[in-house]
């Protein structure tokens, strides 16, 4: 086994990103008729300098991106293919896209598939570069699609989201504020702008963030109002859902807790089958130190949520309260919903403690403890509990019963972050 660390590649490789940005600068100069200028030559020199940091596949992708970028100036030279093959290209593009073979899609688009409009080609390119985690390039193509078809709000929304994901946070925030200040902005773009601003504000200190939280609250309210006037088919429920979550969180950050609670209640009312809505409402109640959290998590469990956290939370509560059969049932379900070793270890550990309490055979309890330790070998508390159990067994159950220490309740902030990311991903896919 090699201990050598894998070199970051493509959008994770700083040399690749630098080369890509230089390429865009060169593209802009060439588009402005300054391709033969001293400045253009300097950029070419700088591009050449980055080459030593690129492997052949990265160099090839830069070349392919350069070819695609000629689209932005309407100078693209398409690969020549026989007419009968060209007619088959849209179906091949669709199949490759559905199979997530994004590089193949990009290659097929370079043959100018029959019947695909330029804005659709730009949009699909944006989706592909985005799926390849090359958000900078994705933003350029979404932006171009939006210029070709300003009436489609999805292009502008996707472009803004890609700018944020490309790590250009200040640019994204500036754009989001501009979008929100424009009273005629389409609700879908407003939702995404609010999302960008909400993410930004969450990272800032409270006093600094307050104006942006206020903008989020206002923007989402306006987006919801305007969205209500749209036909059903023009709404994307997951985008709206995320916007409402952003609003609830911003209200909470502004200290408007009653409104935040009402916002969460409204979300669970309107999305009663969304386990995420119930979990987020529960997490809010935990932050408010309100005992109602449990009922929200129970609701999520009844919906067979794919998130492990409600099972962890409820199993922990049942364990502390001595409801051991319920602990076993919750842990059994919870294990099915997580691939995280630490979380799985907790479920096995709590099952072991509950089974021991219910008088199950020592061997059954031991196996559960050992599985937990194998999954999370550095967990001191877990090892302490396993050792306490083994000590009790070694004394042939004659000594004092083992004193298990319940591990702390899972960290809700961590879950909040993971859950928000998961919901955002779904909204993006929609």
């Amino acid at each position, binding site marked *: 086994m090699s201990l050598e660390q894998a070199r970051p590649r493509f959008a994770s490789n700083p040399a690749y990103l630098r080369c890509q940005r230089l390429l865009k600068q*060169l593209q802009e100069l060439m588009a402005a008729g300054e391709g033969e200028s001293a400045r253009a030559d300097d950029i070419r020199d*700088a591009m050449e300098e980055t080459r030593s940091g690129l492997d052949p596949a990265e160099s090839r992708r830069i070349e392919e991106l*350069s070819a695609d970028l000629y689209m932005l100036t309407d100078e693209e030279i398409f690969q020549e293919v026989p007419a009968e093959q060209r007619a088959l290209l849209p179906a091949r593009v669709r199949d490759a896209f559905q199979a997530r073979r994004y590089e193949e899609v990009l290659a097929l688009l370079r043959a100018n598939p029959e019947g695909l409009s330029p804005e659709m080609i730009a949009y699909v390119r944006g989706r592909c570069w985005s799926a390849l985690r090359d958000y900078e390039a994705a933003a350029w193509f979404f932006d171009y699609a939006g210029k070709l078809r300003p009436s489609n709000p999805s292009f502008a929304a996707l472009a803004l989201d890609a700018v944020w994901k490309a790590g250009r946070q200040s640019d994204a925030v500036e754009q989001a504020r501009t979008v929100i200040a424009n009273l005629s902005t389409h609700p879908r773009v407003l939702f995404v702008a609010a999302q960008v601003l909400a993410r930004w504000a969450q990272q800032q200190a409270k006093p600094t963030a307050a104006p942006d939280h206020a903008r989020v609250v206002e923007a989402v309210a306006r987006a919801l109002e305007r969205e209500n006037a749209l036909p059903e088919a023009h709404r994307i429920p997951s985008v709206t859902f995320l916007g409402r979550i952003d609003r609830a969180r911003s209200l909470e950050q502004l200290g408007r807790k009653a409104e935040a609670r009402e916002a969460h209640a409204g979300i669970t009312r309107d999305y009663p089958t969304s386990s995420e809505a119930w979990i987020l409402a529960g997490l809010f109640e935990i932050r408010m130190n309100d005992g109602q959290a449990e009922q929200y998590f129970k609701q999520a469990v009844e919906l067979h949520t794919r998130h492990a956290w409600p099972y962890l939370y409820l199993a922990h509560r049942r364990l502390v309260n001595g409801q051991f059969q319920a602990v076993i049932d919750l842990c059994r379900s919870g294990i099915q919903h997580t691939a995280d070793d630490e979380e799985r270890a907790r479920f096995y550990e709590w099952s072991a403690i509950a089974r021991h309490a219910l008088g199950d055979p020592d061997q059954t309890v031991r196996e559960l403890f050992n599985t937990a330790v194998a999954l999370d070998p550095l967990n001191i508390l877990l090892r302490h509990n396993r050792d306490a159990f083994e000590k009790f067994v070694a004394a042939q159950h004659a000594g004092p019963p083992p004193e298990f220490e319940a591990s702390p309740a899972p960290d809700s902030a961590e879950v909040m972050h993971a859950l928000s990311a998961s919901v955002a991903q779904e909204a993006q896919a929609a």
Partner: protein
Amino acid sequence: LLGVRLPDPAKPEGTADIAPDTQDNVGPGGKGMSVAPGIEQLPIERFPKRFRTLRPGARGSDTDRIWRHGTGTFERASVAQGLMLHPDQADHGVVEPAETMNVEQYEQALAATASDWVIDEP
């Protein structure tokens, strides 16, 4: 132009081909005039835009020409008096000083190869 770019405070750092020492000497070590094994391996920023039907991503200046110096395998070897081909990647190499010499001598050695270069464009 046949030659190398020397450090220039007015240009971005890292764009020089070779860095003379304090005595203005240069030597072997993987720095020098960049070359590619063939036109297919030229980076897009050096492949003139006018040949875009061959390489749709070409971004090179249209005032540039593509030159070839001899034929043969792309491997470390002497290419002219005082000059050594030093391949550093499959698609890139440098023509470096064969031994330590003054930077002017190196530039003269490169200039002396001028008549050996031929335009080799598609």
